[in-house]
């Protein structure tokens, strides 16, 4: 199988991730509970992962909160910031992990719509509506189109206008630079199991704003207190954290540190462009930006007959794993005008080779040209 669905989860991972998880399962107890070596080993691993994330995202280790996934992290951030009736400005490319918690919080959602791959227009859309809103939630990279929103400029504008910002870094963490200190935003949410190369069931919320727990329970500290501790990260980490998952995530972070963000970014960028070259002139509508800063690691297309599910199924039979449909982001499809058909999404990992991607591109083109058969 050639795996081109890394925007959903990084199936291809460094070998050390699985080994660390297995080691943790066999040897580590509950962190922040006991004082014996198996508990302290777990605590050490959890803290080492906090430190590694803090170094990558330029913050203090206690600002790193472990979550189940990016959706959990976004729910925590929105729970802390959004009250019923607040006007919340979002991009036209948000995932349901942003939209649904906002609707559940009875927020008045305002969409800063802008054309695909037009970063200047995206910034202007935010700038022009920000004054009338209480907070901004914005994805860094669209999970459907790979559109890279100008998050540094949007964060600067939020700061200038005094509007708190939540960043959804689900598609960018581990590939593009993310600096909590420089962005100075309220929260940054991300999964551990995509670009950070950790296992499913892991996520991170970087906190730079007052928080409000969603879950209440044991933290291993301040135990006589009837309410959750005031201090982060314990305040948002009720119950035993996912130690095997965090042990795996630590290895993912170490892989990123050793490889280097820029090398990962360039590899993914190069694979995206190479693949686009392979499927060009196939009769499909391809959503590709010639400006490298506007698109990262994700390419969507719609086959000539508009049947995305059929194409994904044919590709699956040919050993190429892709995702079709709305990708849990109906808003992005409304913005791009692809709501009716959805798209077929190809997403790239730095662990893929040009040979794999070339073969996937060649087969995709053949399938498109030969009426869905190879």
């Amino acid at each position: 199988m050639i795996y081109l669905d890394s925007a959903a989860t990084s199936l291809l991972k460094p070998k050390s991730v699985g080994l660390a998880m297995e080691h943790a399962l066999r040897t580590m107890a509950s962190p922040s509970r006991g004082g014996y070596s198996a508990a302290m080993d777990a605590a050490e691993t959890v803290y080492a992962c906090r430190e590694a994330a803090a170094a990558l995202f330029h913050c203090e280790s206690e600002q790193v909160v472990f979550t189940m996934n990016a959706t959990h992290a976004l729910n925590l951030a929105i729970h802390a910031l959004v009250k019923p009736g607040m006007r919340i400005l979002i991009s036209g490319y948000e995932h349901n992990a942003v939209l649904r918690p906002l609707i559940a919080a009875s927020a008045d959602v305002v969409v800063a719509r802008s054309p695909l791959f037009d970063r200047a227009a995206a910034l202007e859309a935010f700038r022009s509506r920000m004054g009338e809103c209480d907070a901004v939630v914005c994805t860094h990279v669209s999970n459907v189109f790979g559109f890279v929103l100008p998050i540094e400029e949007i964060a600067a504008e939020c700061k200038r206008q005094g509007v708190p910002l939540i960043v959804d870094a689900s598609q960018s963490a581990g590939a593009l630079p993310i600096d909590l200190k420089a962005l100075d935003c309220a929260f940054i949410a991300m999964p551990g199991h995509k670009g950070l190369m950790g296992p499913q069931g892991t996520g991170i919320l970087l906190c730079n704003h007052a928080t409000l727990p969603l879950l209440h329970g044991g933290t291993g500290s301040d135990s006589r207190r009837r309410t959750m501790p005031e201090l982060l990260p314990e305040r948002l980490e009720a119950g035993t954290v996912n130690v095997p998952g965090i042990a795996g995530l630590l290895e993912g972070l170490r892989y990123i540190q050793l490889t280097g963000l820029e090398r990962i970014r360039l590899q993914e960028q190069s694979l995206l462009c190479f693949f686009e070259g392979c499927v060009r002139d196939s009769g499909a509508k391809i959503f590709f930006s010639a400006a490298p800063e506007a698109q990262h690691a994700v390419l969507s297309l719609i086959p000539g007959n508009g049947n995305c599910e059929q194409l994904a199924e044919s590709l699956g039979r040919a050993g190429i794993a892709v995702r079709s449909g709305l990708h849990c982001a109906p808003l992005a499809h409304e913005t791009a005008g692809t709501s009716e058909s959805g798209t077929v999404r190809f997403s790239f990992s730095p662990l893929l080779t040009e040979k794999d991607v070339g073969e996937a591109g060649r087969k995709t083109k053949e399938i498109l040209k030969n009426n869905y058969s190879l």
Partner: protein
Amino acid sequence: MPALIMFRSLTYAQRAARSLQRQGIPADITKAPQGTTDKGCTYCVRVADQRLSSSLNALRNEGIEHGRILQQSGSEYREVRL
């Protein structure tokens, strides 16, 4: 005899211990001894008595807040007033 520097959470104790270790001060983490805290489960950083002063200076320089400080005296602990 060791001195114990108490922290409000394990994460802060870990940050403090890492910081001291980076500055060449041997430090490890232990649970607070019975009867030394009214907050329930608490973690401490243990340093050698003679390194206590330099440890506190190092933590202050790093902006790491700590709680009470205890010194072991036989089988008992007494609070150090700064």
